[in-house]
Protein backbone atom coordinates (compact mmCIF):
# COMPACT_ATOMS: atom_id res chain seq x y z
CA UNK A 1 0.00 0.00 0.00
CA UNK A 2 1.68 3.16 -1.17
CA UNK A 3 1.58 6.44 0.70
CA UNK A 4 -0.09 8.03 -2.26
CA UNK A 5 -2.76 5.34 -2.26
CA UNK A 6 -3.46 5.92 1.42
CA UNK A 7 -3.65 9.66 0.86
CA UNK A 8 -6.01 9.14 -2.04
CA UNK A 9 -8.31 6.97 0.04
CA UNK A 10 -8.22 9.48 2.87
CA UNK A 11 -9.26 12.16 0.40
CA UNK A 12 -12.17 9.94 -0.52
CA UNK A 13 -13.31 10.15 3.11
CA UNK A 14 -14.52 13.69 2.76
CA UNK A 15 -15.28 14.37 6.41
CA UNK A 16 -11.90 13.03 7.49
CA UNK A 17 -10.08 15.08 4.91
CA UNK A 18 -11.83 18.30 5.90
CA UNK A 19 -11.02 17.46 9.54
CA UNK A 20 -7.38 16.94 8.66
CA UNK A 21 -7.15 20.35 7.02
CA UNK A 22 -9.03 21.92 9.94
CA UNK A 23 -6.63 20.34 12.43
CA UNK A 24 -3.57 21.40 10.43
CA UNK A 25 -4.87 24.97 10.39
CA UNK A 26 -5.50 24.83 14.14
CA UNK A 27 -2.03 23.38 14.67
CA UNK A 28 -0.41 26.20 12.75
CA UNK A 29 -2.50 28.70 14.68
CA UNK A 30 -1.36 27.09 17.92
CA UNK A 31 2.26 27.73 16.97
CA UNK A 32 1.80 31.30 15.82
CA UNK A 33 -0.92 32.13 18.37
CA UNK A 34 1.05 34.84 20.22
CA UNK A 35 1.57 36.70 16.95
CA UNK A 36 -1.87 36.43 15.45
CA UNK A 37 -4.05 37.02 18.50
CA UNK A 38 -5.82 40.35 17.99
CA UNK A 39 -5.24 41.34 21.62
CA UNK A 40 -2.84 40.44 24.40
CA UNK A 41 -4.71 37.54 26.01
CA UNK A 42 -3.39 38.51 29.46
CA UNK A 43 -3.98 42.24 29.25
CA UNK A 44 -6.60 43.26 31.79
CA UNK A 45 -8.79 46.26 31.27
CA UNK A 46 -11.20 46.83 34.11
CA UNK A 47 -13.08 49.49 32.20
CA UNK A 48 -14.06 46.91 29.60
CA UNK A 49 -15.29 43.92 31.60
CA UNK A 50 -17.89 41.42 30.36
CA UNK A 51 -18.41 43.19 27.05
CA UNK A 52 -20.64 41.69 24.41
CA UNK A 53 -19.14 40.65 21.07
CA UNK A 54 -18.13 43.64 18.94
CA UNK A 55 -15.87 44.48 16.04
CA UNK A 56 -13.00 45.05 18.44
CA UNK A 57 -13.65 42.07 20.70
CA UNK A 58 -15.08 39.38 18.47
CA UNK A 59 -16.33 37.23 21.32
CA UNK A 60 -16.46 39.94 23.95
CA UNK A 61 -14.35 40.27 27.09
CA UNK A 62 -14.19 38.37 30.37
CA UNK A 63 -14.63 39.57 33.92
CA UNK A 64 -11.16 41.12 33.92
CA UNK A 65 -11.61 42.78 30.52
CA UNK A 66 -9.44 40.28 28.67
CA UNK A 67 -10.27 39.52 25.03
CA UNK A 68 -12.00 36.10 24.93
CA UNK A 69 -11.18 35.37 21.30
CA UNK A 70 -7.47 35.92 21.88
CA UNK A 71 -7.57 33.69 24.93
CA UNK A 72 -9.37 31.03 22.92
CA UNK A 73 -6.58 31.06 20.33
CA UNK A 74 -3.96 30.82 23.05
CA UNK A 75 -5.80 27.84 24.48
CA UNK A 76 -4.96 25.94 21.32
CA UNK A 77 -1.35 25.68 22.44
CA UNK A 78 -2.11 23.68 25.57
CA UNK A 79 -4.57 21.49 23.69
CA UNK A 80 -2.16 20.62 20.90
CA UNK A 81 0.76 20.15 23.28
CA UNK A 82 -1.34 17.63 25.15
CA UNK A 83 -2.14 15.91 21.85
CA UNK A 84 1.54 15.80 20.93
CA UNK A 85 2.52 14.26 24.26
CA UNK A 86 -0.33 11.79 24.07
CA UNK A 87 0.92 10.59 20.70
CA UNK A 88 4.69 10.76 21.18
CA UNK A 89 5.07 9.11 24.59
CA UNK A 90 2.99 6.03 23.71
CA UNK A 91 4.74 5.77 20.34
CA UNK A 92 8.22 6.03 21.83
CA UNK A 93 7.65 3.91 24.94
CA UNK A 94 4.48 1.86 24.51
CA UNK A 95 5.10 0.58 20.99
CA UNK A 96 8.67 -0.71 21.55
CA UNK A 97 7.62 -2.35 24.80
CA UNK A 98 4.63 -3.97 23.13
CA UNK A 99 6.70 -5.26 20.22
CA UNK A 100 9.36 -6.69 22.54
CA UNK A 101 6.76 -8.27 24.77
CA UNK A 102 4.92 -9.82 21.84
CA UNK A 103 8.04 -10.92 20.02
CA UNK A 104 9.91 -12.39 22.96
CA UNK A 105 6.87 -13.89 24.70
CA UNK A 106 7.43 -16.07 27.77
CA UNK A 107 7.76 -14.78 31.29
CA UNK A 108 8.69 -11.23 30.24
CA UNK A 109 5.48 -11.02 28.26
CA UNK A 110 3.46 -12.41 31.16
CA UNK A 111 4.78 -9.98 33.73
CA UNK A 112 4.58 -7.13 31.34
CA UNK A 113 1.02 -7.74 30.32
CA UNK A 114 -0.17 -8.18 33.90
CA UNK A 115 1.29 -4.74 34.66
CA UNK A 116 -0.40 -3.30 31.59
CA UNK A 117 -3.72 -4.91 32.61
CA UNK A 118 -3.34 -3.41 36.06
CA UNK A 119 -2.73 0.09 34.76
CA UNK A 120 -5.51 -0.09 32.20
CA UNK A 121 -7.94 -1.05 34.97
CA UNK A 122 -7.44 2.43 36.45
CA UNK A 123 -9.68 5.00 34.71
CA UNK A 124 -7.57 7.37 32.62
CA UNK A 125 -8.62 10.56 34.34
CA UNK A 126 -7.98 9.10 37.79
CA UNK A 127 -4.55 7.87 36.75
CA UNK A 128 -3.69 11.23 35.23
CA UNK A 129 -4.85 12.89 38.42
CA UNK A 130 -2.74 10.59 40.57
CA UNK A 131 0.37 11.08 38.46
CA UNK A 132 -0.02 14.84 38.35
CA UNK A 133 -0.68 14.87 42.05
CA UNK A 134 2.44 12.88 42.74
CA UNK A 135 4.70 14.78 40.33
CA UNK A 136 3.39 18.13 41.44
CA UNK A 137 0.67 20.24 39.93
CA UNK A 138 1.74 21.93 36.71
CA UNK A 139 0.76 21.94 33.07
CA UNK A 140 4.03 20.23 32.18
CA UNK A 141 3.38 17.37 34.60
CA UNK A 142 -0.18 17.09 33.34
CA UNK A 143 1.24 16.60 29.84
CA UNK A 144 3.53 13.84 31.09
CA UNK A 145 0.63 12.21 32.87
CA UNK A 146 -1.43 12.31 29.68
CA UNK A 147 1.42 10.65 27.81
CA UNK A 148 1.72 7.95 30.45
CA UNK A 149 -1.97 7.04 30.64
CA UNK A 150 -2.12 6.11 26.96
CA UNK A 151 1.15 4.17 26.96
CA UNK A 152 -0.11 0.84 28.33
CA UNK A 153 -3.02 0.79 25.87
CA UNK A 154 -0.61 1.36 23.01
CA UNK A 155 1.70 -1.35 24.35
CA UNK A 156 -1.20 -3.81 24.44
CA UNK A 157 -2.18 -2.98 20.89
CA UNK A 158 1.39 -3.27 19.60
CA UNK A 159 1.80 -6.59 21.39
CA UNK A 160 -1.40 -8.03 19.97
CA UNK A 161 -0.47 -6.98 16.45
CA UNK A 162 3.06 -8.34 16.85
CA UNK A 163 1.71 -11.71 17.98
CA UNK A 164 -0.30 -11.89 14.77
CA UNK A 165 2.50 -10.86 12.45
CA UNK A 166 5.07 -13.03 14.20
CA UNK A 167 3.50 -16.23 12.93
CA UNK A 168 2.99 -15.04 9.35
CA UNK A 169 4.72 -17.25 6.78
CA UNK A 170 6.98 -14.48 5.49
CA UNK A 171 8.30 -13.82 8.99
CA UNK A 172 8.91 -17.53 9.53
CA UNK A 173 10.68 -17.65 6.18
CA UNK A 174 12.85 -14.70 7.12
CA UNK A 175 13.69 -16.40 10.42
CA UNK A 176 14.66 -19.63 8.70
CA UNK A 177 16.91 -17.77 6.31
CA UNK A 178 18.82 -16.53 9.32
CA UNK A 179 17.47 -13.04 9.94
CA UNK A 180 18.09 -11.68 13.43
CA UNK A 181 15.38 -10.54 15.82
CA UNK A 182 16.12 -6.84 15.35
CA UNK A 183 16.12 -7.19 11.58
CA UNK A 184 12.75 -8.93 11.68
CA UNK A 185 11.27 -6.35 14.01
CA UNK A 186 12.43 -3.43 11.91
CA UNK A 187 11.89 -5.00 8.52
CA UNK A 188 8.67 -6.95 9.03
CA UNK A 189 6.93 -6.19 12.26
CA UNK A 190 7.04 -2.40 12.46
CA UNK A 191 5.80 -1.77 8.90
CA UNK A 192 3.00 -4.29 9.33
CA UNK A 193 1.72 -3.18 12.69
CA UNK A 194 1.96 0.50 11.75
CA UNK A 195 -1.55 1.03 10.34
CA UNK A 196 -3.58 0.14 13.46
CA UNK A 197 -1.09 2.01 15.60
CA UNK A 198 -1.39 5.15 13.51
CA UNK A 199 -5.18 4.93 13.72
CA UNK A 200 -5.05 4.49 17.50
CA UNK A 201 -2.58 7.38 17.87
CA UNK A 202 -4.82 9.67 15.86
CA UNK A 203 -7.63 9.08 18.36
CA UNK A 204 -5.27 9.99 21.22
CA UNK A 205 -5.24 13.57 19.96
CA UNK A 206 -8.93 13.77 20.82
CA UNK A 207 -8.70 11.93 24.13
CA UNK A 208 -5.71 14.03 25.17
CA UNK A 209 -7.56 17.27 24.60
CA UNK A 210 -10.47 16.00 26.68
CA UNK A 211 -8.14 14.92 29.50
CA UNK A 212 -6.04 18.08 29.38
CA UNK A 213 -9.05 20.37 29.55
CA UNK A 214 -10.52 18.27 32.37
CA UNK A 215 -7.30 18.47 34.36
CA UNK A 216 -6.99 22.20 33.74
CA UNK A 217 -10.61 22.61 34.71
CA UNK A 218 -9.85 20.91 38.03
CA UNK A 219 -6.85 23.17 38.53
CA UNK A 220 -4.44 20.26 38.01
CA UNK A 221 -3.14 21.43 34.63
CA UNK A 222 -2.66 24.92 33.30
CA UNK A 223 -2.18 27.41 36.13
CA UNK A 224 -3.17 31.03 35.62
CA UNK A 225 -1.76 32.98 33.75
CA UNK A 226 -1.27 29.89 31.55
CA UNK A 227 -4.29 29.52 29.29
CA UNK A 228 -6.18 26.31 28.60
CA UNK A 229 -9.75 25.90 27.43
CA UNK A 230 -10.21 23.92 30.63
CA UNK A 231 -9.25 26.70 33.02
CA UNK A 232 -11.08 29.23 30.86
CA UNK A 233 -14.23 27.24 31.55
CA UNK A 234 -13.34 26.98 35.22
CA UNK A 235 -12.93 30.76 35.48
CA UNK A 236 -16.07 31.35 33.47
CA UNK A 237 -18.03 29.03 35.78
CA UNK A 238 -17.96 31.61 38.54
CA UNK A 239 -19.53 34.06 36.06
CA UNK A 240 -22.27 31.63 35.05
CA UNK A 241 -24.98 34.02 36.18
CA UNK A 242 -23.41 37.04 34.50
CA UNK A 243 -22.38 35.71 31.10
CA UNK A 244 -22.95 32.06 30.19
CA UNK A 245 -21.36 32.63 26.79
CA UNK A 246 -17.94 32.67 28.42
CA UNK A 247 -18.53 29.01 29.23
CA UNK A 248 -19.98 28.14 25.88
CA UNK A 249 -17.14 29.37 23.61
CA UNK A 250 -14.25 27.31 24.98
CA UNK A 251 -16.51 24.28 25.25
CA UNK A 252 -17.44 24.58 21.59
CA UNK A 253 -13.74 24.91 20.76
CA UNK A 254 -13.02 21.65 22.60
CA UNK A 255 -15.93 19.89 20.95
CA UNK A 256 -15.04 20.94 17.41
CA UNK A 257 -11.40 20.00 17.81
CA UNK A 258 -12.23 16.63 19.36
CA UNK A 259 -14.84 15.93 16.69
CA UNK A 260 -12.31 16.70 13.98
CA UNK A 261 -9.84 14.34 15.66
CA UNK A 262 -12.46 11.58 15.81
CA UNK A 263 -13.43 12.04 12.16
CA UNK A 264 -9.77 11.93 11.16
CA UNK A 265 -9.31 8.72 13.14
CA UNK A 266 -12.37 7.14 11.53
CA UNK A 267 -11.15 8.17 8.09
CA UNK A 268 -7.63 6.88 8.70
CA UNK A 269 -9.06 3.56 9.78
CA UNK A 270 -10.86 3.23 6.47
CA UNK A 271 -7.90 4.53 4.48
CA UNK A 272 -5.37 2.25 6.15
CA UNK A 273 -7.43 -0.90 6.47
CA UNK A 274 -9.18 -1.91 3.27
CA UNK A 275 -11.02 -4.68 5.10
CA UNK A 276 -12.57 -2.35 7.67
CA UNK A 277 -16.26 -1.81 7.04
CA UNK A 278 -17.93 1.40 8.05
CA UNK A 279 -20.77 1.01 10.53
Amino acid at each position, binding site marked *: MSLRGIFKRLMGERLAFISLIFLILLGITAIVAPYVAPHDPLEQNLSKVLLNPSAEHWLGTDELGRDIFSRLIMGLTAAFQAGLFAILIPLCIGVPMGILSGYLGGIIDDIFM*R*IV*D*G*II*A*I*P*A*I*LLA*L*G*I*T*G*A*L*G*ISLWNAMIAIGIIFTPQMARLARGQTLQIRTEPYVEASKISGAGAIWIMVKHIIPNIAPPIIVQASFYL*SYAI*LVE*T*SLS*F*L*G*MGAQSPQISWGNM*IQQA*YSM*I*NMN*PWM*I*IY*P*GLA*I*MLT*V*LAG*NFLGDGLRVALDPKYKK*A
Partner: protein
Amino acid sequence: MFFKFIMRRLLYVIPMLIITTLIVFSFILLIPGDPALALLGENATPEKIAQIHAQLGLDQPVIKQYLNWLGNAVQGDLGRSIFTGQPVEEAVFSRLGVTFQLVIVAMIFAIAGGLFFAITSIYFPNSWMDYVARFFGTLGTAIPNFWLGMILIIFFSLQLGWVPATGFTSITESPGAFLQGTILPAIALGATGMAQITRHLRSSLIEVMSADYVRTGFSKGINRWQAIMKHGLQNAMLPVVTTIGILFGNLLGATVVIETVFAIPGMGQLAVNSILQRDFTMLQGVVLVLIALIILINFITDIVYALLDPRIEY
Protein backbone atom coordinates in the same frame (compact mmCIF):
# COMPACT_ATOMS: atom_id res chain seq x y z
CA MET B 1 -19.31 -26.03 37.02
CA PHE B 2 -20.41 -22.46 37.27
CA PHE B 3 -18.99 -22.19 40.77
CA LYS B 4 -15.64 -23.42 39.51
CA PHE B 5 -15.76 -20.87 36.72
CA ILE B 6 -16.34 -18.09 39.24
CA MET B 7 -13.48 -19.33 41.37
CA ARG B 8 -11.15 -19.38 38.37
CA ARG B 9 -12.11 -15.83 37.51
CA LEU B 10 -11.56 -14.82 41.11
CA LEU B 11 -8.06 -16.26 40.95
CA TYR B 12 -7.38 -13.92 38.07
CA VAL B 13 -8.58 -10.98 40.13
CA ILE B 14 -5.96 -11.46 42.83
CA PRO B 15 -2.80 -10.66 40.79
CA MET B 16 -4.75 -7.78 39.29
CA LEU B 17 -5.42 -6.39 42.77
CA ILE B 18 -1.77 -6.81 43.79
CA ILE B 19 -0.54 -4.95 40.73
CA THR B 20 -3.00 -2.12 41.06
CA THR B 21 -2.33 -1.71 44.77
CA LEU B 22 1.37 -1.60 43.92
CA ILE B 23 0.69 1.16 41.41
CA VAL B 24 -1.45 3.04 43.88
CA PHE B 25 1.18 2.68 46.52
CA SER B 26 3.93 3.90 44.24
CA PHE B 27 2.16 7.21 43.88
CA ILE B 28 3.86 8.21 47.05
CA LEU B 29 7.24 7.05 45.77
CA LEU B 30 6.78 9.08 42.60
CA ILE B 31 6.93 12.35 44.51
CA PRO B 32 10.27 13.89 43.62
CA GLY B 33 12.47 14.38 46.64
CA ASP B 34 11.34 13.75 50.18
CA PRO B 35 7.55 13.53 50.44
CA ALA B 36 7.78 14.97 53.93
CA LEU B 37 9.43 18.06 52.50
CA ALA B 38 6.83 18.26 49.79
CA LEU B 39 4.11 17.97 52.41
CA LEU B 40 5.54 20.44 54.87
CA GLY B 41 6.88 22.95 52.40
CA GLU B 42 8.59 25.84 54.12
CA ASN B 43 7.54 24.82 57.60
CA ALA B 44 9.86 21.82 57.55
CA THR B 45 11.84 21.26 60.71
CA PRO B 46 13.88 18.11 61.32
CA GLU B 47 11.43 17.02 64.05
CA LYS B 48 8.43 17.46 61.83
CA ILE B 49 10.14 15.62 58.99
CA ALA B 50 10.99 12.71 61.27
CA GLN B 51 7.45 12.73 62.58
CA ILE B 52 6.00 12.44 59.09
CA HIS B 53 8.52 9.77 58.13
CA ALA B 54 7.42 7.71 61.09
CA GLN B 55 3.78 8.40 60.37
CA LEU B 56 4.14 7.25 56.77
CA GLY B 57 6.50 4.45 57.70
CA LEU B 58 9.10 5.98 55.43
CA ASP B 59 11.90 5.03 57.76
CA GLN B 60 11.36 1.40 56.75
CA PRO B 61 12.39 -0.37 53.51
CA VAL B 62 10.02 0.24 50.60
CA ILE B 63 8.83 -3.35 50.26
CA LYS B 64 8.05 -3.47 53.97
CA GLN B 65 6.17 -0.18 53.64
CA TYR B 66 4.08 -1.67 50.88
CA LEU B 67 3.37 -4.89 52.74
CA ASN B 68 2.43 -2.99 55.87
CA TRP B 69 0.12 -0.75 53.96
CA LEU B 70 -1.42 -3.70 52.10
CA GLY B 71 -1.79 -5.71 55.30
CA ASN B 72 -3.58 -2.84 56.96
CA ALA B 73 -5.70 -2.16 53.87
CA VAL B 74 -6.90 -5.76 53.83
CA GLN B 75 -8.02 -5.33 57.43
CA GLY B 76 -9.87 -2.17 56.49
CA ASP B 77 -7.28 0.25 57.84
CA LEU B 78 -6.22 2.69 55.17
CA GLY B 79 -4.23 4.97 57.46
CA ARG B 80 -4.97 8.46 58.58
CA SER B 81 -5.29 11.62 56.54
CA ILE B 82 -2.09 13.63 56.69
CA PHE B 83 -4.13 16.76 56.52
CA THR B 84 -6.97 16.22 58.98
CA GLY B 85 -5.90 13.12 60.84
CA GLN B 86 -9.26 11.51 60.07
CA PRO B 87 -9.10 7.76 59.35
CA VAL B 88 -9.05 7.41 55.57
CA GLU B 89 -11.51 4.50 55.46
CA GLU B 90 -14.02 6.59 57.40
CA ALA B 91 -13.80 9.50 54.96
CA VAL B 92 -13.88 7.16 51.98
CA PHE B 93 -16.88 5.13 53.01
CA SER B 94 -18.92 8.15 54.03
CA ARG B 95 -18.58 9.37 50.43
CA LEU B 96 -18.63 6.11 48.55
CA GLY B 97 -22.41 5.85 48.80
CA VAL B 98 -22.87 9.28 47.21
CA THR B 99 -20.64 8.49 44.25
CA PHE B 100 -22.11 5.03 43.87
CA GLN B 101 -25.66 6.37 43.67
CA LEU B 102 -24.61 8.95 41.11
CA VAL B 103 -22.74 6.44 38.96
CA ILE B 104 -25.61 3.96 39.04
CA VAL B 105 -28.09 6.57 37.81
CA ALA B 106 -25.62 7.62 35.11
CA MET B 107 -25.14 3.98 34.09
CA ILE B 108 -28.89 3.45 33.86
CA PHE B 109 -29.16 6.59 31.73
CA ALA B 110 -26.27 5.52 29.49
CA ILE B 111 -27.47 1.94 29.00
CA ALA B 112 -31.15 2.79 28.57
CA GLY B 113 -30.35 5.64 26.19
CA GLY B 114 -27.83 3.56 24.28
CA LEU B 115 -30.29 0.67 23.88
CA PHE B 116 -33.06 3.03 22.84
CA PHE B 117 -31.05 4.89 20.22
CA ALA B 118 -29.32 1.82 18.82
CA ILE B 119 -32.54 -0.19 18.52
CA THR B 120 -34.65 2.59 17.02
CA SER B 121 -31.86 3.39 14.61
CA ILE B 122 -31.80 -0.22 13.41
CA TYR B 123 -35.59 -0.58 13.39
CA PHE B 124 -36.08 2.58 11.34
CA PRO B 125 -32.98 2.67 9.14
CA ASN B 126 -32.29 5.97 7.38
CA SER B 127 -35.21 7.63 9.17
CA TRP B 128 -34.86 10.83 11.18
CA MET B 129 -34.59 8.66 14.31
CA ASP B 130 -31.62 6.92 12.76
CA TYR B 131 -29.95 10.24 12.01
CA VAL B 132 -30.64 11.53 15.51
CA ALA B 133 -29.06 8.38 16.95
CA ARG B 134 -26.01 8.70 14.73
CA PHE B 135 -25.73 12.40 15.52
CA PHE B 136 -25.76 11.75 19.28
CA GLY B 137 -23.39 8.84 18.85
CA THR B 138 -20.88 11.08 17.13
CA LEU B 139 -21.35 14.18 19.23
CA GLY B 140 -21.51 12.40 22.57
CA THR B 141 -17.95 11.13 22.38
CA ALA B 142 -16.62 14.63 21.63
CA ILE B 143 -18.43 16.59 24.33
CA PRO B 144 -16.41 17.43 27.44
CA ASN B 145 -18.56 16.12 30.30
CA PHE B 146 -17.89 18.98 32.71
CA TRP B 147 -18.90 21.46 30.04
CA LEU B 148 -22.06 19.53 29.24
CA GLY B 149 -22.85 19.66 32.96
CA MET B 150 -22.59 23.45 32.93
CA ILE B 151 -24.70 23.74 29.80
CA LEU B 152 -27.36 21.65 31.53
CA ILE B 153 -27.15 23.91 34.59
CA ILE B 154 -27.45 27.02 32.44
CA PHE B 155 -30.48 25.65 30.68
CA PHE B 156 -32.41 23.61 33.22
CA SER B 157 -31.45 25.35 36.46
CA LEU B 158 -30.80 28.97 35.59
CA GLN B 159 -33.16 29.46 32.64
CA LEU B 160 -35.99 27.07 33.41
CA GLY B 161 -35.43 26.66 37.13
CA TRP B 162 -36.61 23.06 37.08
CA VAL B 163 -33.90 21.50 39.23
CA PRO B 164 -31.27 22.82 41.62
CA ALA B 165 -27.87 23.53 40.08
CA THR B 166 -25.81 21.92 42.82
CA GLY B 167 -26.06 19.73 45.86
CA PHE B 168 -26.93 16.15 46.58
CA THR B 169 -29.55 14.32 48.61
CA SER B 170 -29.20 10.61 49.29
CA ILE B 171 -31.94 8.34 47.98
CA THR B 172 -32.41 7.01 51.50
CA GLU B 173 -33.29 10.50 52.73
CA SER B 174 -35.68 11.63 50.03
CA PRO B 175 -36.09 9.85 46.71
CA GLY B 176 -37.67 12.92 45.14
CA ALA B 177 -34.89 15.29 46.08
CA PHE B 178 -32.40 12.59 45.14
CA LEU B 179 -33.75 12.42 41.61
CA GLN B 180 -33.89 16.21 41.30
CA GLY B 181 -30.31 16.55 42.42
CA THR B 182 -28.97 13.61 40.46
CA ILE B 183 -30.64 13.96 37.09
CA LEU B 184 -28.35 16.65 35.63
CA PRO B 185 -25.04 15.27 36.91
CA ALA B 186 -26.08 11.79 35.81
CA ILE B 187 -26.81 13.01 32.28
CA ALA B 188 -23.53 14.91 32.13
CA LEU B 189 -21.69 11.89 33.47
CA GLY B 190 -23.46 9.31 31.30
CA ALA B 191 -23.70 11.15 27.97
CA THR B 192 -20.37 9.95 26.63
CA GLY B 193 -21.14 6.42 27.72
CA MET B 194 -24.54 6.58 26.08
CA ALA B 195 -22.89 7.68 22.86
CA GLN B 196 -20.36 4.86 23.08
CA ILE B 197 -23.02 2.24 23.74
CA THR B 198 -25.18 3.63 20.91
CA ARG B 199 -22.32 3.49 18.43
CA HIS B 200 -21.06 0.11 19.50
CA LEU B 201 -24.45 -1.58 19.78
CA ARG B 202 -25.62 -0.08 16.51
CA SER B 203 -22.68 -1.38 14.52
CA SER B 204 -22.92 -4.70 16.33
CA LEU B 205 -26.63 -4.95 15.53
CA ILE B 206 -26.05 -4.11 11.87
CA GLU B 207 -23.63 -7.00 11.68
CA VAL B 208 -25.86 -9.40 13.57
CA MET B 209 -28.97 -8.53 11.56
CA SER B 210 -27.33 -9.81 8.40
CA ALA B 211 -26.30 -13.06 10.09
CA ASP B 212 -27.61 -16.35 8.75
CA TYR B 213 -29.53 -17.19 11.91
CA VAL B 214 -31.51 -13.95 11.65
CA ARG B 215 -32.40 -14.94 8.10
CA THR B 216 -33.50 -18.30 9.50
CA GLY B 217 -35.68 -16.36 11.91
CA PHE B 218 -37.24 -14.42 9.04
CA SER B 219 -37.83 -17.68 7.19
CA LYS B 220 -39.86 -18.82 10.22
CA GLY B 221 -42.10 -15.82 9.73
CA ILE B 222 -40.98 -13.48 12.49
CA ASN B 223 -41.20 -9.75 11.93
CA ARG B 224 -38.41 -7.20 12.07
CA TRP B 225 -39.08 -6.24 15.67
CA GLN B 226 -38.97 -9.87 16.80
CA ALA B 227 -35.81 -10.36 14.76
CA ILE B 228 -34.12 -7.50 16.59
CA MET B 229 -35.38 -8.24 20.07
CA LYS B 230 -35.32 -12.05 20.09
CA HIS B 231 -32.46 -12.90 17.78
CA GLY B 232 -30.39 -9.78 17.23
CA LEU B 233 -30.06 -8.12 20.59
CA GLN B 234 -28.64 -10.90 22.75
CA ASN B 235 -25.99 -11.68 20.17
CA ALA B 236 -25.26 -8.03 19.51
CA MET B 237 -25.00 -7.29 23.23
CA LEU B 238 -22.10 -9.70 23.72
CA PRO B 239 -19.35 -7.32 22.59
CA VAL B 240 -21.20 -4.40 24.17
CA VAL B 241 -21.17 -5.99 27.64
CA THR B 242 -17.42 -5.48 27.72
CA THR B 243 -17.89 -1.84 26.77
CA ILE B 244 -20.37 -1.44 29.61
CA GLY B 245 -17.91 -2.96 32.07
CA ILE B 246 -15.20 -0.53 31.00
CA LEU B 247 -17.72 2.28 31.05
CA PHE B 248 -18.41 1.78 34.73
CA GLY B 249 -14.74 2.41 35.53
CA ASN B 250 -14.66 5.45 33.29
CA LEU B 251 -17.74 6.89 34.97
CA LEU B 252 -16.23 6.36 38.40
CA GLY B 253 -13.16 8.23 37.18
CA ALA B 254 -15.19 10.99 35.59
CA THR B 255 -16.93 11.72 38.90
CA VAL B 256 -13.84 13.73 39.88
CA VAL B 257 -14.89 16.29 37.30
CA ILE B 258 -18.67 16.05 37.55
CA GLU B 259 -18.73 16.18 41.35
CA THR B 260 -16.66 19.35 41.18
CA VAL B 261 -19.09 20.96 38.73
CA PHE B 262 -22.18 20.04 40.72
CA ALA B 263 -20.61 20.38 44.17
CA ILE B 264 -21.47 16.81 45.11
CA PRO B 265 -19.62 15.55 48.19
CA GLY B 266 -18.45 12.23 46.74
CA MET B 267 -15.28 10.27 46.12
CA GLY B 268 -14.29 12.39 43.14
CA GLN B 269 -14.35 15.56 45.12
CA LEU B 270 -12.43 13.85 47.89
CA ALA B 271 -9.77 12.79 45.38
CA VAL B 272 -9.41 16.30 43.98
CA ASN B 273 -9.23 17.88 47.43
CA SER B 274 -6.64 15.41 48.65
CA ILE B 275 -4.42 16.19 45.67
CA LEU B 276 -4.78 19.92 46.18
CA GLN B 277 -3.94 19.43 49.87
CA ARG B 278 -1.20 16.91 49.00
CA ASP B 279 -2.92 14.44 51.30
CA PHE B 280 -1.38 11.29 49.86
CA THR B 281 -2.64 8.72 52.31
CA MET B 282 -6.13 9.94 51.56
CA LEU B 283 -5.52 9.85 47.81
CA GLN B 284 -4.13 6.34 48.04
CA GLY B 285 -7.20 5.24 49.95
CA VAL B 286 -9.64 6.83 47.52
CA VAL B 287 -7.93 5.44 44.46
CA LEU B 288 -7.54 2.01 46.04
CA VAL B 289 -11.24 1.74 46.86
CA LEU B 290 -12.25 2.98 43.41
CA ILE B 291 -9.97 0.48 41.71
CA ALA B 292 -11.17 -2.37 43.87
CA LEU B 293 -14.68 -1.43 42.83
CA ILE B 294 -13.71 -1.38 39.17
CA ILE B 295 -12.05 -4.77 39.38
CA LEU B 296 -15.17 -6.10 41.05
CA ILE B 297 -17.29 -4.73 38.21
CA ASN B 298 -15.00 -6.24 35.59
CA PHE B 299 -15.36 -9.55 37.38
CA ILE B 300 -19.15 -9.23 37.28
CA THR B 301 -18.95 -8.27 33.60
CA ASP B 302 -17.06 -11.48 32.85
CA ILE B 303 -19.73 -13.51 34.56
CA VAL B 304 -22.57 -11.71 32.79
CA TYR B 305 -20.81 -12.32 29.50
CA ALA B 306 -20.56 -16.02 30.27
CA LEU B 307 -24.25 -16.12 31.15
CA LEU B 308 -25.22 -14.39 27.90
CA ASP B 309 -23.05 -16.56 25.69
CA PRO B 310 -23.72 -20.28 26.04
CA ARG B 311 -20.60 -21.00 23.97
CA ILE B 312 -18.36 -19.97 26.87
CA GLU B 313 -17.21 -23.10 28.65
CA TYR B 314 -17.36 -22.70 32.38
